[in-house]
């Protein structure tokens, strides 16, 4: 009755597949709905640069055949799915001998590290601030200070990042502006390298955390206020429990559930925002690689990254979903009481 039921897992798993299917299909369909096709456009641009290309038509056709763009659309779609399943995205167009997948998997750890740290920090700080803001017993001086932590909430991550680079890296010269580590350290499991990586991560992490934690705080504040008015919250007071127990076991414990749902739903937006942060900080993660693939018109890498990001997002949401029944016993409740 409690924990994971097969029905629930199955339902969430179908949702997981649906998300991946929807995202990947969008990536497949929308470019094909647009007028023109990538190959003609590329050749067109090449001929603009070179002035003239011999047998441009034949070139277009042979490239289309090379990429399978001459097949009927449903055949293309099935082939596309076959490739997505085997994680086979072909060779990178800009770094030819390298496979697209290799480039992407090199970038992935950087993004995962940056985002995991930033998300965990921003969510936990935000939830703490919001819980205290929505609690009647929070000391008054704290109630007055807390709202100031929301100052940067409305600002997009990357704009804050630009200003941080200018102020902290260029004007004050406290921290490095771009990249994930300096050239002068040897990559590996040694202390100087780890320290170097950490100092490089500070600015990107700070720009994400400071601008996103206010959102969690505001949401959590509203949820705490609702819980404050619940009957069980009042009964806990009447029971003479200590304020800290009421706050954690009765307040936060209940209010955090919708916040976790919001976290699962908000992961996509978080990852979107991090692309720009990586671009601004030239951080060698998937976002920055995506940007470089786009300016060098490396379609295979672009597709590989987009699919990977969708996969990672959907997987994180799926994992959160699987965790949820352990936190909220009501979620898998079935009406058959024994």
């Amino acid at each position: 009755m409690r924990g994971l039921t097969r029905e629930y897992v199955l339902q969430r798993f179908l949702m997981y597949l649906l998300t991946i299917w929807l995202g990947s299909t969008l990536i497949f369909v929308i470019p094909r709905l647009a007028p023109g096709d990538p190959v003609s456009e590329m050749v067109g641009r090449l001929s603009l640069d070179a002035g003239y290309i011999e047998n441009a038509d034949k070139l277009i056709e042979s490239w289309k055949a090379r990429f399978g763009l001459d097949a009927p659309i449903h055949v293309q779609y099935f082939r596309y799915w076959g490739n997505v399943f085997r994680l086979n995205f072909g060779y990178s167009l800009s770094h030819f001998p390298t496979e697209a997948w290799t480039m992407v998997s090199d970038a992935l750890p950087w993004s995962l590290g940056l985002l995991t740290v930033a998300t965990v920090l921003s969510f936990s700080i935000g939830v703490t601030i919001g819980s205290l803001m929505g609690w009647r017993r929070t000391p008054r001086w704290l109630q007055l200070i807390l709202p100031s932590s929301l100052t940067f909430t409305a600002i997009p991550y990357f704009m804050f990042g630009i200003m941080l680079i200018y102020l902290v890296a260029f004007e004050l010269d406290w921290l490095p502006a771009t990249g994930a580590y300096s050239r002068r350290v040897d990559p590996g499991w040694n202390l100087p390298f780890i320290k170097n990586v950490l100092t490089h991560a500070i600015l990107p992490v700070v720009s994400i955390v400071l601008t996103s934690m206010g959102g969690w705080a505001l949401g959590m504040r509203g949820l705490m206020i609702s819980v404050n008015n619940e009957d069980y919250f009042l009964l806990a007071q009447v029971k003479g429990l200590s304020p800290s127990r009421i706050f954690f076991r009765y307040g936060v414990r209940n209010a955090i559930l919708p916040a976790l749902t919001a976290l699962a739903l908000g992961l996509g937006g978080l990852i979107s925002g991090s692309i720009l942060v990586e671009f601004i900080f030239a951080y060698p993660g998937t976002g920055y690689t995506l940007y470089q693939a786009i300016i060098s018109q490396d379609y295979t890498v672009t597709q590989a990254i987009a699919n990977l990001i969708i996969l990672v997002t959907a997987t994180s949401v799926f994992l959160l979903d699987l965790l949820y029944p352990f936190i909220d016993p009501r979620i898998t409740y079935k009406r058959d009481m024994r």
Partner: protein
Amino acid sequence: MTVGQRTVDESGTPARGWGLNTWDSPWLNFKFLLGVAIVSLILLFGLLGPLFWDTDLAYTGAGPLNKPPVWQEGGLPEHPLGTESNGRDMLAQLILATPSSLKVGFLAAIIGMGIGMVLGSVAGYVGGWWDHVIRTLSDSAVTIPALVVLVVIASYVQMTDTTAMALILAAFAWPGPTRLVRSQILTLRERSYVRMAHLSGAPALEIMFVEMLPNMLPWLAASLTGGISVAILGATGLEVLGLGPTRVPSLGLIINQATTNAALVRGLVWWWLPPIIILMVIFVGFFLMTIGLDEIANPRIRQFSSSRRERTAAGEAPTVVHGDGGIGGGEDAALEVDDLHVHYFTPRGEVIAANGVDFRVRKGEILGLVGESGCGKTTVAMAILQVVQAPGRIVQGAVRIEDQDLVSLSGRALREVRWRDLALVPQGAMNSLNPVTPIREQMADAILAHENVGRLELEARILGLLNDVGLPERVIDMYPHELSGGMKQRVCIAMAIALNPQVIIADEPTSALDVVVQRVVAQTLLEVKERLGVSMVMIGHDMGLQAQLVDRIAVMYAGNLVEVAPVESAFAEPLHPYTQLLIESIPSIKERKPLNVTEGLTHDLRNPPPGCIFQFRCQHVEQICRERRPELVEREDDHLVACWLYEPERHSLIELEEA
């Protein structure tokens, strides 16, 4: 249980409407209006700018290169905000770029909202298969990282103008509004006025627009302003990456050109900073609008912040006037409530919810506290328990258990008395148990907060308590949602007797249960009381139930006690006209009698009239009733009433005054 606020609403304060022209309209929210003002200013800058400034300067080669703004050394008055590396005038660029960024946001969010309203209404109103499909689609679409897909799309499709971009962005703006509209419709269609409209045969669209839309408006508006800033963010993101329309000036494009031309390193602050500032101001504006609208849509948030303000204004420390003396000796009293005054400090004045309530509960007896809804009986219960919710406050009086005044206690001292001496069986057993923890833990924390008990002993004790109220042992590891309403209420009773308290307050313990379960719960309460010899205050409006359960009955009207009597004499010979009315209203199976409803409503609780509080509904009202407040006086043996009818000297009293 009724938290004080509801009592106030029921007692004549008109509910706040959404009307736009009342002086305290919720739309007059400071944050919301500030946000509107900020966004309007930015919009005016973009729209009126071309009238005052030559926007042709925004194109390549119109001026000298890399000039700083006019207030810096080397700045030129003809380029007040400076120029960038292509000689373009910054002011002209900003004027052209601002409205196009706003336009994309508005367009995308409005289209997304339109799609969302259609899909959400279908899902919420039609339901069934449609609901399932739409919900699943929007749930999964909302988790797709939109910008990634947008970037991929933009890398294939050259976006020529802002409209094309807005259309593509709208493809990602619908899931939020869809989810919102669906859940709002599901909530609203259960409301009684919407059901009424259904029953009266109003067409679905009319119900949608007339009954539902006005109530959804603040939510929709918050979703729209939130959606606009997300869309602007998406568009700006694409532009910053150089994937937006390159021929139309936009704020993101200026940032893109600045960063790709190394403006940061070269110190050309006036190139990259102004577009960022404008964008930040726009985002702050929409953000203020969104949180303002959230407060408008969610009265609880409003109430929370305003009650805090009022508490601060009224001075946080309660200035309680401690009364002493009062009627009757207190030797055999388990609980003494002494001249209790509770006021609610609302923006429209002080609501007097309890006005000098004074009674004793004797050891081992059940005192019934009855009265119509809104008369203040739950407020009295909350005041006894010291949990009157803001903006309410005990302004005078004492609540004594064993000569200890609870009103003067606070912090640890109060916590120690709670539950050990004074327990509660709550009104809403449905919601009185913490939904996410098993029964074991909720019973254990009540015990452990007051006693040091080992693990094994604790378990044995909890099982014993469950057994006492007739619940099977397996309940200990169940969650509240796995129990029926009656079982939950019995868990609450088991919890209340866990520490063998002096007094239990039972706040309408059976009101939400069906009749059969009501009997079981009432029976359980009686058994518990008999076995433990505990004293009880039983709050309720069901006179029939009270007649069977209580020893003495206290009748409350508009914040005042009007009669306190042993239950037999109260029913056999009710003295106060209000008590008589209450007893007449008990339906009888044996005879059908016309329901006796008196004309006239309760007075405004903010200004009680001089004289008797029941004068407007009383059939026997006399001159003195309009002038002097009757005291609660013992007229017969142990039978107290606050009514002039039983004062033989009343005529001479009033003549004396006139003379």
